[in-house]
């Protein structure tokens, strides 16, 4: 009974892992990128701590007012994701506004700064990169792995002991 349950759980875990891996590989092969939403300026459309996925755009004609675009800061120190309000195709400038902000952003962005156009988003998953970060996640996973190995060792020792008792 326990073995069956264990097998079923493992199958589920393996399937989920395969799906996730497949999705990440597809994401990277298609040139799409993911970002964790850090602030509330795009509320209610994009909630803080959600993960937003964007697809690259080849030309300014791929964008239109109403699209949500991810744009890098002038010094490339980061990106922001806001809705396009208007486009100056002559000067290749994009004007943006956060859905949660009362007015347009102070300065338009050149099309060359556009990293991509909004594809879809997933709520809450952005919590991992935003609040745990890479270092803490690795530490937590290592600890979890160590605990699992320990449990396995204890379980194996208990099983061995049981068998020995049954034999004597």
């Amino acid at each position, binding site marked *: 009974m326990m073995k069956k349950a264990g097998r079923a759980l*493992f199958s589920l875990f*393996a399937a989920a892992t395969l799906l996730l891996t497949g999705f990440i590989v597809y994401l990277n092969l298609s040139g799409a990128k993911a970002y964790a939403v850090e*602030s509330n300026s795009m509320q209610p459309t994009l909630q803080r701590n959600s993960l937003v996925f964007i697809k690259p755009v080849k030309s300014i004609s791929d964008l239109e007012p109403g699209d949500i675009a991810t744009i890098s*800061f*002038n010094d490339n120190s980061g990106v*922001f994701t806001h809705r396009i309000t208007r486009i100056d195709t002559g000067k290749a400038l994009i004007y943006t506004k*956060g859905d949660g*902000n009362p007015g347009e952003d*102070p300065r338009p962005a050149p099309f060359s700064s556009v990293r991509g156009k909004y594809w879809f988003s997933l709520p809450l998953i952005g919590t991992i990169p935003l609040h745990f970060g890479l270092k803490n996640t*690795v530490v937590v996973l290592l600890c979890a792995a160590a605990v699992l190995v320990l449990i396995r060792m204890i379980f194996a020792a208990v099983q061995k002991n049981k068998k020995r008792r049954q034999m004597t």
Partner: protein
Amino acid sequence: MKKKTVRSLRCAAAFLFVACFVYIAALPATSAWFYVQYDGVKKDFIFGDLDVVQTYTSTETIELYAATKLEDTGEYLFDDVLQIVQIDAANEGTLPARVYFSIDEGTGNPAGLRYYFFEDGDAENEMLQAGPVKRKISAQNLIIPGNNAATNAALALYNFGTGTGNSQGRYISIAPGVTKTLKIAFWADYNAVGLPSTLEDTDNVAAHYVYNAVKITLHAAQDTDGAFVRN
């Protein structure tokens, strides 16, 4: 053989799972430069990394029950006739920032509106001193006793500087990850507004000096001289 295969599959699945988690954990953030949040009385100005100056605007009605004289060092009731507008400014970016302020006094309002921009804790032993706002102003050496014109000139220079180069006036520094309560104290200058035209019932005091649609703007810029220039 089957056991070995199962074990290998388990290891592979675990490794893939960890790799996926690490990938997600390493994803970069996207933040807007700023957002403005209105929540009834509480005002918030939250900004992130600053590539350009970020602004927050609030339109207020300033109602003052009496005029006062900042330059009168014997006036201990100065703080009693202030209206203080309070805004919480949060630096959610990764670099230190400065917050400057501007006031648009609106049109059709009486003359004599004065203001002073400060944060809590500007003066030591604030709680123990009477008239803490006036004490803060005094600590900046802005009060020239008995001289209204010179006091107002000093106040204007302190608030806004000359508007050229590095002289852009009063700013409050906010470190990354820090929220500060910024305050602007308003009062009516007795010399400019004059006496009220009618006497009033002291049981029913009305605001004599009402300034409508006074626009307060906060500007957040990088914490470097020259990052903010008044237009």
